């Protein structure tokens, strides 16, 4: 390289660094499918950068459980300013780390529960449900499912968020009877997979009649594939709710920007991206309403949710029961 080019290169590099130093960087940790090219990440990054005069960087880390583990591993010196993608099963454990700071967001949420958590702001939610294909008569509750000759595929609660959701669903609906329900369900379960993708893949391949997923799953097939043959089965016990949240880290070096992001998160620019990228319900319904197709989805009358403070203890108890019932 000739000296003049070298000098130009150094100059360019210096200019670039200075320019970078002037633009504050907001680092948001989230789960992997959020940052993927098909997730909400790219749209939201563009929308926020238009208004924040900053560089929004998403960092993906496996799933929701991996996200909390990552935050715990990094502790107080984490580069993250915001953590986005925990759910109410994890918020108590997250709060217990002492790493999260209170938020200042105050809006009317369209979440089917009263939201009072001082540290975490919900950004989307959904109901767990069993999804089936046209051509079977779906059971109306867990007992009917246990008596049917249908085969289901579910996820392992130890490695998957929906798997844990199902565990809490049965526990919330049946309490001390949950082990008996699991014992009855055992021979209906074709298999248990590591994550959601595997089970849903097996279901689409025809290995099972129903897969544990979300009430919103049929919306994907309807809107993106114009396929109206997939449905979620309404259960009379009610459906377990998953509320996904974000929180600001106490040690963030961009606390104001982090607050701004959380405020932005409940506006239309963020929320309108959720239904057709994350395939969940927005926490605050956008002005234009939900996309066409969402009106066909089932709307459970009862939302089940274990209060987040009780979740950790109940989770361990329910896991033991589940392991015992299915290991026989």
């Amino acid at each position, binding site marked *: 390289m000739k000296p003049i080019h070298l000098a130009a290169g150094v100059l360019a590099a210096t200019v670039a660094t200075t320019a970078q130093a002037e633009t504050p960087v907001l680092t948001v940790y989230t789960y992997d499918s959020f940052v993927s090219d098909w997730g909400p990440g790219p749209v939201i990054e563009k929308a926020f950068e238009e208004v924040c005069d900053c560089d929004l960087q998403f960092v993906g880390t496996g799933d929701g459980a991996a996200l909390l583990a990552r935050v715990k591993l990094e502790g107080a010196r984490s580069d993250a300013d915001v953590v986005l993608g925990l759910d109410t099963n994890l918020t108590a454990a997250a709060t217990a780390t002492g790493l999260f700071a209170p938020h200042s967001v105050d809006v009317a949420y369209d979440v089917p529960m009263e939201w009072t958590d001082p540290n975490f702001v919900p950004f989307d939610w959904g109901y767990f449900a069993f999804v089936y294909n046209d051509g079977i008569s779906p059971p109306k509750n867990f007992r009917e499912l246990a008596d049917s000759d249908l085969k289901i595929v579910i996820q392992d609660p130890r490695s998957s968020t929906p798997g844990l959701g199902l565990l809490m669903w049965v526990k919330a609906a049946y309490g001390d009877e949950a082990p008996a329900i699991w014992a009855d369900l055992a021979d209906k379960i074709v298999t248990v997979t590591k994550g959601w993708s595997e089970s849903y*893949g097996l279901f689409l*391949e025809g290995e099972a009649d129903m897969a544990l997923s979300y009430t919103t799953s049929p919306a994907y097939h309807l809107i993106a594939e114009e396929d109206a043959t997939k449905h979620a089965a309404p259960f009379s016990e009610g459906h377990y709710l998953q509320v996904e949240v974000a929180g600001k880290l106490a040690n963030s070096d961009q606390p104001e920007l982090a607050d701004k992001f959380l405020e932005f998160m409940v506006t239309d620019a963020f929320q309108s991206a959720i239904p057709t990228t994350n395939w969940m319900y927005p926490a605050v319904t956008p002005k234009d309403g939900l996309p066409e197709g969402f009106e066909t989805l089932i709307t459970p009358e009862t939302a089940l949710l274990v209060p987040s403070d009780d979740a950790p203890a109940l989770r361990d108890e329910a896991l033991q029961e589940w392991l015992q019932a299915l290991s026989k």
Partner: protein
Amino acid sequence: MAASPVQISRLGGIGAATLVVALIAAALGAVAWRAEGGYSLGPADWAAVRFTLWQAFLSALISVALAVPVARALARRRFVGRGVLIALLGAPFILPVIVAVLGILAVFGRGGWVNQLLGHWGFEPLSIYGLGGVLLAHVFFNLPLATRLILQGWQGIPAERFRLAAQLGLTPRIVFRVLEWPVLLRVVPGALALIFVICLASFAVALTLGGGPRATTIELAIYQAFLFDFDLGRAAMLSLMQLGMAGAAAVLALWLVPQVSLTGGMGRMVRRWDAPTGVLRWVDAALIALAAAFLLVPLLSVVLSGLPGITALPANVFRAAWSSIWVSCVSVCVLLALALPMAGWIGTSRRGGVEAAGLLGFAASPLMIGTGWFILIYPYVAPSSLALPVTALVNALMALPFALRILVPGVRDVVAAQGRLSAALGLRGWRLWLWVILPGVRPQVGFAAGLAAALSMGDLGVIALFADQDHATLPLQMYRLMGAYQMQAAAGAALLLILLAFGAFWICDAWGRRGAVSE
């Protein structure tokens, strides 16, 4: 066996082995050091240990037992497409787990082709979920590997031996006893140990085909300890147990079993005069056809389901494919830099116990290595900027046991055949490597590099822990597509992945076999 006639410097080998052990020990140490609670294991963990041991033992035994007749048939027969078939045998092994599982289920699952046939004939459908399913999948993955290892051993028998046997009019049974059996004794323990260790680390396959939590392996328990309970002490203990079991298996197989070496031949083309004709010929043909069908039909289903998706793949999938190719090239280089000196060292020493160090690379949970190194490098650099190099390194560590298993017997044979002449000519150091050893083990280097390239291409490994938007590999991108409901595009990406992995394998393996003196 007398002392080795050639002196290959041990420094390189010792250095490489130390580096491997240090990489794993550092990660384990970091995890244990960050642990806050105790280091105790619960009854569920012990159940996982028992199940893991049992299924790994059975998987290894069945894979190798089936591989012996298949390899013998392949060794004795020459037919059109034999080379392609042998290369294709590498394919199941390199498939990403989820793709292989879907392929196996398309054939053997509830709605699979086998059950459709059974239903057509009025039989009850078979369910493969359970220990049977786990074993089926593990044999699917490992039978080809065992077959290749045994075949390679037999093909190393000098052509002169078979010629002599033919002149003496020895029957196939006697040929088996005097020529093939000693080689089998040398190859089988290592193959058993290798497959045992591979199956120790199984997680998603065992869970999915095992039908539920009964099929909980140590790897799943480690996953649970890290992500569900955030109990680093337990995760470290479980990792240590996994390493201990792999180490014990390796020591049993490689240390206790004496290493035999054959004296060399002239390197002619092997012609099997002993191959029986008549009925036995058809037995061989049937064996080859059965094994090929068992391995290739699930693969065919993966290819078929990928065809509609592959034409419409989004651009970012191709970007991820480039990352994967890069990772794969780097890990092959790292692998050879580690494996060749180690193989040189092990190949000239009397006992093969050092190879155990190599096996640890596969037995170490990727989650443990990833987390451990994350803890270590986090204070200094952003982990996402090291996502691809760390992935390449971990992939190279994973491929190391295969590379050693493939290379060590080759090095032994070259040393036995050419060692005295080389010593008499005073060849040492790089000249010895360049002029004698490397040309002699070229087929093995090609096979090992091909496996490493393909494994690295298909492995999800640690990338998911480190990745950001810009550093995705092809397997990760495929999982992301599945996570976004885009199953058809994901199937297309899986097909692309197979083509790339198999292409990389083919290039390396063909390079090795073209220069092979014994074929």
